[in-house]
């Protein structure tokens, strides 16, 4: 036993291991050749092991600072004998791990035409840094003259997880809640001690649990700089930030400004504590990861890390040495370069192993399938590596299967049997059907079944489809039915930013109105969206606040708004209590019915001998759906005997969807004799609380043969 000191790692390690003693001394610091693995800065007994690689640098210097200091504490050039291959590594002893900040200087050629942009005048952030100092408290104006704005910090990787591990909820049972950490609790109405932080999110876990979702998908929580391209709105003077955070400074470090303890450098512990607590409540954590570009922008952008360390390796460059821009953000990470592939893999393994993260959603993931010159690969090695990685073996892998360079791979993303996709077609088709477009029932039938047209031919199944109607990009669910057009003036770009293909409908008036008929129609359409989403095969994802009727006042691209356009107003829980109740019960309905959560596509035939096919289609007449081009209504029945491929017995479920402006009389198919009678679970045509009934308390239907479905309404029946 050594007299190990947990606090500093300072022990008489030299007596314990023969490779932890100093052999050199430079500028008064005791050191020795380090270990190339692992990359980054790692606490070792008595010191810190620093390791960094660059394929093209000719020399490297470690620069140490006291926390926050302008001038370095010391600069230690790596003796050439400390280099193995392209990796420089060094152990430095007797450092105070809590107060040291570190960076590197890299020397090498500056020849942009050849892709080389070394500048030894810059002090660079380690791409493998596990924590970053410099933006410790959200919104604190930075010192723009700081030569070293983002600083590597050392972290104790000793979190006590006790018995926690990722939950491994079967993906078909997942209900995802997409959220922004700061937006969730920043509003004064949240009533939390530390608004806008991981800690505050933890305080709100009871709300998430009561809503019933079992997975939160966090918009970027990697270190990003809210001040990147920050500016004042030309008219209002409002400060506009890089608020959403889709622009990474460092892939391994949690955003310090999202932690109430960020100013104490304890963001790692705070985020891990949040994950542990979410897990205790049966809630998984998916991170939105942005491996398509970095915050360094193009050749006009700042050089603070990747560009100065190994430009030619990290970025996709044109033959002239400029930056390809498939991300729409200035540069493109060179993901299928073998070295960058490794860093992506190392990073995700780190989050899965160290933070117990349950899954990842990859922003603009189509980029990850492009070769170093931008051409789409048929068998992208990065995607394959991720799919077969042992540490990531049980993680959910979700692709946003398109990019800003025009590659659209919904249905054809290289899946390797693992990848799910944000199903953009689900969003588009559902929006069109909900607002009453004709000619959409055929597509609706595909979407409800988990899009077999997209994921059937390749054997991927409904679990490949992340079904959503709204996400952070675009309108909120309420705004989808309150605005025909985007209203992005607050972003200061003359309303030119944000998509124009919203497939939205304002129900007769653009924006807020006192007209009761319009308001009730909007709330009914919102309920219809919730209802269809929760009875669809595939994995439902809802956007934070859509259970409360959250509005962004018609802004469909609030990426820069640190205000109530993004902040969730918790008072809506009173104002729209009926909607919240509806959403909770709709989620409960999905959870109560295994027949909605099949792992394999429905076959439209009877393979268990129940007399009914697993799914059957209906209309005004039972067994007779109207597939015509003018149709705006469709009904289907799920046979309870076919639940989970016939291995589980569930209730029969009948769903009638009417997006016509007129009330429709639906003939209801009879369930198989002995399966019970129809009960009304949902009728969005009724006012709250008659719009939905808790599972088990559904009233029996009087006329078992027919149902009058109101205009723009969804009805769900269960037979038991």
């Amino acid at each position, binding site marked *: 036993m050594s007299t190990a000191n*947990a606090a500093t790692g*300072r022990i008489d390690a030299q007596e314990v291991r023969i490779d932890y003693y100093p052999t050199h001394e430079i500028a008064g610091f005791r050191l020795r050749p380090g270990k190339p693995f692992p990359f980054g800065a790692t606490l070792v007994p008595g010191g810190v092991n620093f390791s960094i690689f660059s394929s093209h640098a000719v020399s490297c210097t470690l620069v140490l600072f006291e926390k926050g200091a302008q001038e370095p504490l010391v600069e230690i050039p790596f003796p050439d004998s400390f280099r193995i291959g392209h990796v420089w590594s060094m152990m430095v002893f007797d450092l*105070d*791990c809590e107060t040291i900040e570190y960076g590197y200087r890299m020397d090498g050629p500056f020849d942009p035409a050849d892709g080389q942009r070394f500048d030894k005048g810059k002090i660079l952030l380690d791409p493998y840094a596990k924590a970053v100092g410099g933006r410790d408290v959200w919104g604190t104006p930075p010192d723009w003259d700081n030569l070293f704005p983002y600083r590597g910090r050392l972290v*104790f990787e000793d979190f006590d997880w006790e018995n926690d591990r990722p939950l491994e909820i079967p993906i078909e049972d997942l209900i995802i809640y997409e959220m922004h950490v700061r937006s969730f609790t920043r509003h004064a109405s949240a009533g939390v001690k530390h608004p806008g932080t991981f800690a505050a999110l933890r305080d709100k876990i009871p709300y998430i649990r009561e809503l019933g979702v079992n997975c939160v998908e966090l918009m970027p929580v990697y270190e990003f700089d809210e001040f990147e391209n920050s500016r004042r709105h030309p008219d209002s003077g409002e400060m506009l930030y890089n608020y959403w955070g889709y622009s990474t400074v460092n892939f391994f470090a949690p955003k310090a400004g999202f932690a109430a*303890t960020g100013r*104490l450098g304890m963001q790692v*512990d705070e985020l891990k*504590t949040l994950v542990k607590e979410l897990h205790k409540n049966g809630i998984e954590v998916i991170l939105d990861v942005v491996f398509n570009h970095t915050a360094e922008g193009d050749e006009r952008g700042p050089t603070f890390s990747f560009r100065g360390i190994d430009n030619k390796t990290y970025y996709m460059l044109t033959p002239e040495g400029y930056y390809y821009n498939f991300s729409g953000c200035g540069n493109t990470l060179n993901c299928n370069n073998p070295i960058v592939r490794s860093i992506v893999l190392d990073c995700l393994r780190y989050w899965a192993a160290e933070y117990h993260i349950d899954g990842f959603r990859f922003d603009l993931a189509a980029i990850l399938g492009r070769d170093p010159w931008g051409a789409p690969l048929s068998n992208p090695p990065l995607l394959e590596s991720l799919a077969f990685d042992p540490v990531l073996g049980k993680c959910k892998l979700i692709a946003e299967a398109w990019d800003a360079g025009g590659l659209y791979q919904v249905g054809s993303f290289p899946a390797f049997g693992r990848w799910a996709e944000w199903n953009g077609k689900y969003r588009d088709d559902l929006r069109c059907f909900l607002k009453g477009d004709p000619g959409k029932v055929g597509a609706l039938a595909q979407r409800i079944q988990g899009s077999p047209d997209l994921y059937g031919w390749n054997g991927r199944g409904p679990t490949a489809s992340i079904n959503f109607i709204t996400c952070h990009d675009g309108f909120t669910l309420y705004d989808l039915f309150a605005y025909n057009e985007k209203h992005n003036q607050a972003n200061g770009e003359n309303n030119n930013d944000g998509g124009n293909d919203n497939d939205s409908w304002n129900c007769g008036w653009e924006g807020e109105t006192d007209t009761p008929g319009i308001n009730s129609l909007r709330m009914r359409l919102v309920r219809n969206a919730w209802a269809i989403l929760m009875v669809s095969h595939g994995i439902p994802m809802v956007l934070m606040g859509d259970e409360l009727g959250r509005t962004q006042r018609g802004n469909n691209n609030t990426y820069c708004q640190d205000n109530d356009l993004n902040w969730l107003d918790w008072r809506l829980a009173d104002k729209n209590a009926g909607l919240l109740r509806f959403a909770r019960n709709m989620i409960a309905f999905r959870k109560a019915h295994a027949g909605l959560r099949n792992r394999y596509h429905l076959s439209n035939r009877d393979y268990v001998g129940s007399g009914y096919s697993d799914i059957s289609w209906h209309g005004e007449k039972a067994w007779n759906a109207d597939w015509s081009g003018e149709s705006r209504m469709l009904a289907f029945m799920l046979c309870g005997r076919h639940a989970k491929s016939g291995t589980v017995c569930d209730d029969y479920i009948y769903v009638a969807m009417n997006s016509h402006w007129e009330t429709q009389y639906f003939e209801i198919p009879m369930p198989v004799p002995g399966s019970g009678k129809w009960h009304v679970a949902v009728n969005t045509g009724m006012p709250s609380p008659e719009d939905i009934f808790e599972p088990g308390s559904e009233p029996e239907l009087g006329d078992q043969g027919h149902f009058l479905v109101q205009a723009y309404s969804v009805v769900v029946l269960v037979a038991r």
Partner: protein
Amino acid sequence: MAIETKLDGANVIATVSGDIDGKSAPQVQSELLAALQAGNRLLVDMRGVVYLSSAGLRMLLLLYRQVAARKGKVVLVGVSEEIRDTMSMTGFINFFTLADSQEAGLSALA
């Protein structure tokens, strides 16, 4: 940082004041470990602790683990609201019994 330890029956009572950070935590740790040779019930009076850093929290958790392994108990007395808050947000608080006064702390140890 200043630290005093005394033995009260089977209880080790330590009074710490000032900052516990990466620089002072090793000393606190070694003094407490030495005092714990005499007993496995530890009361740390922290009313005088102004600042407890990440390294300080880890030192306390390591002490807790060692004491728990010997079927003992650790009680922290008079932890300031700010430190308590930090301990809560970073999960450390779950491992400790907290008390407002030495008397309450001693009865929690019993």
